[in-house]
């Protein structure tokens, strides 16, 4: 093998009959990369009766693999089909979303092919024969620039790394590829479980007071709830608060929770890990309160307070109540 392939392959993902936004974003990213390498943009969609999804990606060619076992994602069958396809098509770069499915697919593909993996990439580009990615490490506190070389590289791409709209459109062609090697798969999809009905739909609230691990204990939630109340909004939270059982899952903001766009998102005691930012970075006004001046949340907030939430929240609640009369 001499050097990397020049084509860029996007592994599209879909759930409940819809392609994920990140698939379009990756198609846009692939166009950028292929323009630089002079290669083609390719995508692959696996599914069952889902060929219409393949028609939506703005790339040169989409490979569509149809099989009942591929109707819903399960790691083993998907990994098998994708590894075979990548071996055959020999792209230089495979783009995978940094999503729940991507976290299964990308490293498995890298392992099956013996290719390097650049994970958590905000940006990716060619430099000569190498693929260079800019990744987020340490909960977003440090960035890394890393280069992969070899026959090809697998890259996981963070949400929001390219404009989705540039990736929407009819592909040059859709090619059906037969699924093979699906006997005796060792992971099998059983069911989708929808979230339980929520008391409050945080995606519909104009004001969210959002709390993170900095709140320290369940008893302290009351303090934040009072501020939310005074502002006529609702309480939401980062993942650890939900994992601790202090608030229902429906209040979680982020990658595995809800994506919110309120008029005001007030984050108190939230560090701003990439998985959290994914769910709130487009809020109209973001205010963050954190004792750590280097917390990544200050990188997306419009206004920041470097201080103790226990000092600020009660006073703020008082003043908001006064102002509201």
């Amino acid at each position: 093998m001499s050097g990397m392939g020049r084509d860029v392959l996007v592994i599209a993902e879909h759930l409940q009959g819809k392609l994920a936004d990140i698939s379009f974003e990756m198609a846009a990213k692939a166009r950028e990369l292929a323009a630089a390498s002079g290669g083609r943009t390719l995508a692959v969609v696996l599914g069952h009766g889902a060929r219409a999804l393949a028609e939506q990606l703005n790339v040169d060619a989409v490979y569509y693999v149809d099989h009942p076992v591929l109707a819903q994602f399960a790691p083993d069958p998907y990994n098998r089909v994708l590894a075979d396809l990548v071996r055959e098509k020999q792209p230089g770069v495979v783009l995978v979303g940094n999503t729940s499915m991507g976290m299964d697919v990308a490293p498995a593909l890298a392992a099956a092919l013996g290719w390097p993996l650049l994970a958590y990439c905000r940006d990716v580009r060619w430099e000569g024969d190498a693929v260079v990615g800019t990744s987020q490490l340490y909960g977003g506190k440090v960035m890394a620039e890393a280069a992969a070389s070899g026959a090809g590289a697998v890259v996981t791409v963070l949400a929001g790394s390219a404009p989705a709209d540039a990736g929407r459109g009819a592909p040059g062609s859709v090619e059906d590829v037969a699924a093979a090697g699906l006997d005796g798969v060792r992971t099998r999809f059983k069911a989708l479980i929808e979230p339980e009905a929520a008391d409050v739909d945080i995606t519909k609230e104009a004001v969210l007071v959002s709390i993170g691990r900095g709140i320290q204990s369940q008893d302290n939630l009351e303090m934040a709830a009072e501020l939310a109340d005074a502002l006529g909004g609702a309480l939401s939270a980062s993942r650890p608060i939900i994992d601790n059982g202090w608030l229902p899952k429906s209040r979680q903001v982020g990658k595995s929770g809800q994506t919110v766009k309120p008029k005001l998102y007030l984050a108190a005691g939230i560090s701003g890990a990439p998985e959290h930012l994914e769910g709130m970075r487009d809020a109209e006004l973001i205010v963050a309160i954190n004792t750590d001046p280097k917390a990544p949340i200050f990188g997306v907030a419009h206004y920041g307070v470097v201080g103790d939430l226990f000092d600020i929240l009660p006073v703020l609640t008082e003043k908001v109540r006064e102002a509201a009369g």
Partner: protein
Amino acid sequence: MNIVVTVKQVPDLVEDLEIDQSGKALDRDWLKFKINEFDEHALEEALLLKEAHGGTVTVLAVDTGEVDETLYTALAKGADRAVKIVGDFAAGVTSHQAAALFAAALKEMDYDLVLTGVQAVDDLDGQVGPLLAAALRVPHVSVVTGVDVDGRVATVRKEYAGGVMAEIEVDLPAVLGIQAAKQPPRYAPVSRVRQVMRTARIEEVEPSAAADAGVEVRRLFKPEGGRQAEIIEGSPEEVADRLVALFREKGILKG
């Protein structure tokens, strides 16, 4: 049922992280380490499975320094064995090395399930579990928030966005990347940890394994560009006044 849980020491992210002279790694002298939080969930899930089905829980770590306390704490919580992979690992190991070392160590062990954390907060790559599964030729599922076992099959819940989950059946043995246990991780009282430190033993193994990731880190740097928050200074009262004025200006507070 025999369950192995991998545990990793990672820098406490609340501390300052300084980049060292090489520009390619963090300055380890100043770092405070703690157990990767998702590994704590993996251990909790393993202990819950042991309580339900019997068997053993073994915690497995690479000796990158300062892992003993984490291993003793795991024993104090109810793990049966603690195994440390020793060697020249003071500077840390890559995901490929860790996976190769675990695969070599596991060849000598009896396991039905290997639980790793979904990802480590230092590298955020979540590669070790899938690489390990590939080396062991067993299936893997990532982003798992609950495991049930019936005979030679596990049923796991895998989390997607928006609170949607998939139920997936996995043949054992398997490697699973745990995001969250069915309940918050239990706490081991310090007195119990001390007692375990006096009585229990950490086993040491020294498998040989080499691996190359094919990735070269060129440089580390602090996030730059993007939006930088305008910092509001002053006493809590002054800060609150500014915020109220801001909320008024943006129409969030009327009047």
